[in-house]
């Protein structure tokens, strides 16, 4: 949207000199000050900025925690408690980091659902969306490895279970698993490499975020109407101060929720068992991942049956591999979402049916999360199987079918029209 031309005007000798050599101020000006954003963005669009700040919060708290953390099976648990008890503000940094991960996922889920609701993934923003899914995957890997570091019972058994996924791969599974673990079971080499990667991946996330923002600035932001900007002058406002102040407000409100958990309920999102030192001879009664993995965990556990060639006993995919495939698939399917949704209309505001299916999908995801926290027996498994089927049906059946079946509402010709119409109806509430 910003196109090739820049409105940056170096004001003094130094900025002119620098602009001819390294146009960094011009870049910042064009990207974060003059960059035009649609004027009708709502609060849900502040989560991008919130996520950027949360990434910085996680990196800063993480870097200082690493200064006191000991990555060894003998020292890890005690070093975390040392941080909590003896290090100046160590308790605060660790609480921020641990709860920050939860808040990060909370924000990313809102960000993803916002993208789904307003059809932000559609042409020409497919690459933008795919980069986002990639960030989500990297976040999951980072969060999982971070959870192993305190070396509590859940850390250890979570690591054991998750790395067990790889043993599901036919033929080479066990070899890959042992290669990942650096041993026959989760141990010192595992902890050390997880620490190393946990430190590395966030910087890779920063890199992909840069690409994500770059892609965003090429195509420009969508907006609640889903209509592309047609008249730059009438329909956009400069990023600063309009988007900046909105992002700050969103961030401040988000931080109230964040602080609520950090200061008053710091263990709410955690599991008591992680305050017990890892013990490789004793499994906790229920192994539960962190809440943000629960829907995927439920999908993993829903596949309890082997898939055979019909009328024979030849097993094509056993239940273990099936579960892993389903779980991987539930995330991988997001990569192809731009091509599964065949509707020409972007925003759910003008898609009455999609809007309903969207909310059903949200509810199904939350219910899957709830099931993921329940023991895997009896009715819970059946419910998880039904909901897993619906999860995939949403992408593979409902979305393609809707594009063909649904009759969208009249889409406004431009953002300006939509805004003006909204204003006039607001002025005459009697209508």
């Amino acid at each position, binding site marked *: 949207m910003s196109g090739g031309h820049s409105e940056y005007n170096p004001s003094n000798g130094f900025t002119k000199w620098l602009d001819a050599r390294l146009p960094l101020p011009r870049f910042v000006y064009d990207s974060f000050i003059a960059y035009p954003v649609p004027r009708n963005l709502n609060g849900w669009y502040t989560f991008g900025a919130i996520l950027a700040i949360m990434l910085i919060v996680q990196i800063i*708290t993480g870097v200082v925690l690493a200064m006191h953390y000991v990555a060894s099976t003998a020292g890890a648990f005690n070093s975390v408690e*040392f941080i909590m*008890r003896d290090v100046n503000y*160590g308790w605060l*940094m660790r609480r921020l980091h641990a709860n920050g991960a939860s808040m990060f996922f909370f924000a990313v889920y809102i960000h993803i659902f916002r993208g789904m609701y307003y059809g932000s993934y559609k042409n020409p923003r497919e690459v933008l969306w795919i980069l986002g899914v990639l960030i989500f995957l990297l976040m999951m890997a980072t969060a999982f490895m971070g959870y192993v570091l305190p070396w509590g019972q859940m850390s250890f058994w979570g690591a054991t279970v998750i790395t067990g996924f790889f043993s599901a791969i036919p033929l080479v599974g066990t070899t890959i698993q042992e290669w990942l673990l650096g041993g026959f079971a989760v141990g010192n080499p595992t902890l050390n490499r997880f620490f190393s990667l946990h430190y590395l991946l966030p910087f890779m996330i920063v890199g992909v975020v840069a690409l994500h923002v770059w892609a965003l600035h090429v195509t420009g932001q969508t907006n609640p109407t889903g209509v592309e900007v047609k008249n730059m002058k009438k329909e956009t406002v400069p990023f600063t101060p309009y988007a900046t102040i909105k992002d700050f407000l969103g961030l401040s409100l988000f931080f109230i929720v964040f602080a609520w958990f950090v200061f008053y309920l710091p263990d709410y999102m955690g599991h008591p068992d992680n305050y017990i030192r890892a013990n490789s001879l004793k499994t906790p009664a229920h192994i539960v991942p962190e809440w943000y993995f629960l829907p995927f965990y439920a999908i993993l556990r829903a596949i309890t049956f082997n898939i055979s060639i019909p009328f024979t006993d030849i097993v094509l995919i056993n239940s273990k591999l099936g579960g892993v495939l389903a779980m991987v698939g539930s995330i991988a399917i997001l990569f192809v979402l731009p091509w599964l949704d065949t509707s020409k209309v972007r925003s759910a505001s003008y898609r009455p049916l999609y809007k309903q299916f969207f909310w059903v999908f949200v509810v199904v995801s939350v219910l899957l999360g709830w099931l993921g926290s329940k023991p895997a027996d009896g009715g819970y498994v059946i419910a998880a199987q039904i909901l897993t089927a619906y999860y995939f049906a949403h992408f593979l059946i409902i979305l393609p079918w809707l594009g063909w079946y649904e009759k969208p509402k009249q889409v406004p010709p431009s953002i300006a029209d939509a805004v003006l119409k909204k204003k006039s109806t607001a002025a005459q509430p009697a209508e």
Partner: protein
Amino acid sequence: MSAKSKSEPTRRDFLYIATGTMGAVGAAAVMWPPIRLMSPDASTLALSSIEVDVSSIEPGQAITVKWRGKPVFIRNRTDKEVEEAGAVAIDELKDKEARNQNLGAGPATAVNRSAGEGKENWIVMIGNCTHLGCIPVGLSGDFGGWFCPCHGSHYDTAGRIRKGPAPENLLIPPFEFISDETLKIG
């Protein structure tokens, strides 16, 4: 915001200034915990004092103990060494300050450098050269005290810098004799 707002802040300007100030204060406040986190922690500070049994150190002998991760020289000096130290005029010294944390400021006399009246034979010093922190070697150098092999600093029998690049006398940590046998450092 035209020329008028420069001379007389409007209500809108006040709001902007208040919000901006609030944000700046908040940003500054959140920087503090991660910075403070890097300073010594409670368990490190708790180990800041040690007790040493010095009853077996004969005149002319020295031991080195570890205090706060640094070597501390504890030397029971011979009468000759004490005498030599006392014979040096303050004006001859490169660093005229006692550098004794038990005293505060004071001239680098032989008594001020020792464990005090009646215990002049004892000298307790942090064994890191005041140049760049290497450990000086005892009973060597041009003045019969300590010699730092890293960059050639010579200290006399009272641990005062006499020659070489080091700027200050060897630092004397806070210490006291709890009894004749026990020395408490820190």
